[in-house]
């Protein structure tokens, strides 16, 4: 192998082969996936992420939730994702067509969140959990996202969205903890995580 151009060609073609198999062919196959339409109700799935949830997606990405929580359900019989109740079916490509970036995740320090909006629909719970995970889940090692909440003096009536902290975690009287715009966006994004819609390709 003393011929430079020959090495170059080999290096080029081996690389092109993987580009063709792992990038180009899947692109041809999956780039034009569309939402599924249900005949009866004319609703389609998935819906594009919009409004507050879109801001929440940015917060989720920015603070790296993905590095401890996956957003994918493995098929029944492969792992215990189904038995743990993380989803009624495996997730498939169509579930993610509007996600940007797609945050499948590769680590489960915490539970899967692919269907967290269905599994835990309580806004109040999510705010308490984000403010301090140990309020709702004793023993958790999740970091506190208290920096997404604001402490303010109560003027007149307490705010509607003030967190109802249990005694153990109470702050000084006369003050209250309220979610910032970012916290509300993040919760909106979490509540939107619903990949339970039956898709034919997921039932093989």
């Amino acid at each position, binding site marked *: 192998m*003393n*011929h*430079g151009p020959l*090495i170059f060609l*080999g*290096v*080029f073609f*081996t*690389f092109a*082969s*993987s*580009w063709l198999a*792992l*990038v180009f062919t*899947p*692109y041809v*196959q*999956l*780039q*034009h*996936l569309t939402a599924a339409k249900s005949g009866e109700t004319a609703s389609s799935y998935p819906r594009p992420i919009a409004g507050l949830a879109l801001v929440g997606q940015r917060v*989720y*990405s*920015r*603070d*790296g*939730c*993905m*590095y*401890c929580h*996956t957003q*994918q359900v*493995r098929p029944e019989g*492969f*792992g*215990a994702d189904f038995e*743990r109740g993380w989803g009624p079916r495996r997730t498939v*490509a*169509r579930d*993610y*067509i*509007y*996600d940007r*970036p*797609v945050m*499948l995740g*590769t*680590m*489960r*320090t915490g539970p899967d969140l692919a269907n967290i909006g269905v599994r835990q629909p309580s806004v109040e719970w999510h705010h308490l959990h984000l403010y301090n*995970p140990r309020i709702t889940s*004793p*023993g*958790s*090692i*999740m*970091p*506190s996202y*208290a*920096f997404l909440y604001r402490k303010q003096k109560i003027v007149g009536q307490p705010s509607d969205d003030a967190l109802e902290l249990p005694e153990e975690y109470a702050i000084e009287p006369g003050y209250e903890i309220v979610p910032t715009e970012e916290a509300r966006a993040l919760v909106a994004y979490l509540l939107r995580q619903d990949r339970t819609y039956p898709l034919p390709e997921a039932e093989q």
Partner: protein
Amino acid sequence: MSDAVAATVEWTPEKRRAYFARERAGIDASTRLPVLTFFAASVFWLLVGTTLAIIASVKMHWPEFLESFSWLTFGRARSAHLDTMAYGWTAQVGLGVSLWLIARLARAPLRWPRLLVGAAGLWNAAVLAGAIGVLGGQMQSVEWLEFPPFVAPLLALAFVVIAMSALTTFGDRQEGHIYVSQWYLFGALFWFPWLYVVANVLILFQPVRGVLQASVNWWFAHNYLGLYLTPIGLASAYYLIPKVIGRPVYSYYLSIIGFWALAFFYNSAGIHHLIGGPMPAWLITYSIVASVMMLIPVGTVAINHHMTTVNHFRLVLYSPTLRFIVFGAMSYTAVSVQGALQSLRTVNEVSHFTHYTVAHAHLGVYAFFTMTMFGSLYYIVPRLTKWEWASARLIRLHFWMTAGGIMLYFLSLTWAGWYQGQMLNDANVPFMDIVKYTLPYLRTRSIAAVMLAVGHLVFAYLFVLNLLHRGEPRRDPTILGDVKEYRDMIGSEGAPQ
């Protein structure tokens, strides 16, 4: 010197040695400024990345630690650790070693040294901006590409300049024979920019739809290790093992098989990170096959290196370079065999989503690549600074702290990860029990991280002493173990350090 001129000289062994020594000195001089710049910057980022690693590691078992700083929340600290290590340390130290090897093996002075220093400046400015961006809230949750998007064009531009210089130097080569290390370096310098540009465009600038981002992501992230770090690590092992021992590489044919099998199979292995995920079955199967086929290049390289070193293993007692590189080469075999097994669906069902994978990644990037780079630096730096390493004791401390630290890291997380996976797959085990089970192992990991940090500080200290020419001037190499014994063993010819 042309063949015609060379024919007029009466060559004696002494003249030959002197001729090549002077030639090497000239080539080294051309690489001195850019290569030392890359090394110094990479050692700086190694320390930054280590600090971030300790912060992230401690946060995992002590979530209240520094919890009020949004800049250091786990997700960001962890990603800043990964990116500073990837682009600050591994990429740069790899570039420094590559440039030096390219010039040495081409027997031609390095092209455009000053331009390279400029490219190094651009590269470091981009890494700094990227790290601040990640910590400050501009992070992208795309694994190995967390930097804010504006960083990518800067890194790509700097890399293209560096690769052009290296490839032009390769084009100037006086040596007719293209040695195996050069194939790997040629590959790495060509593959990385293609990978990096395609991945950034398709994920951050013109995103492809849905899960295609995930497949492009893992095609990139896996190949960053497989087609960039691995070839550079193997190129320096292929150069330094025979150089230090003073024997030829065992078999040219094995070198050829090893290189082309790596080029073909490593490429396609990335999607094994998505087993069980929302990817068509064929794509995952294809990557599993490619991952298992990696046994071919790995077995080949392992035999080639082993047979080159065989009967000379005693040298690892003396030569810092050989000690680190042999540790790295053995780790390469281990991590690759582990990787092939881990890609099988039955094993992956347990190991996926656990600390097992984290341990595996560190076995590759640290025990193989980083240790190989330490070994290379122990060889290259004295030739550039014209100054011997200050202390054999500190080198030994560096070795035992890093080797011990990474083994402790690997064993604790592999064990914890495997049982974590078993428990995750049993729906009767409450999730919080799994969290509690992993805690002692996560604490052990923090201890391992501190050991690695001590090793890195020692190395940084040695490196700075060397740059500043501190310590006694000597003409003898800094040898681990007894110097007299070592002299008896190697005889008068040559020197393994």
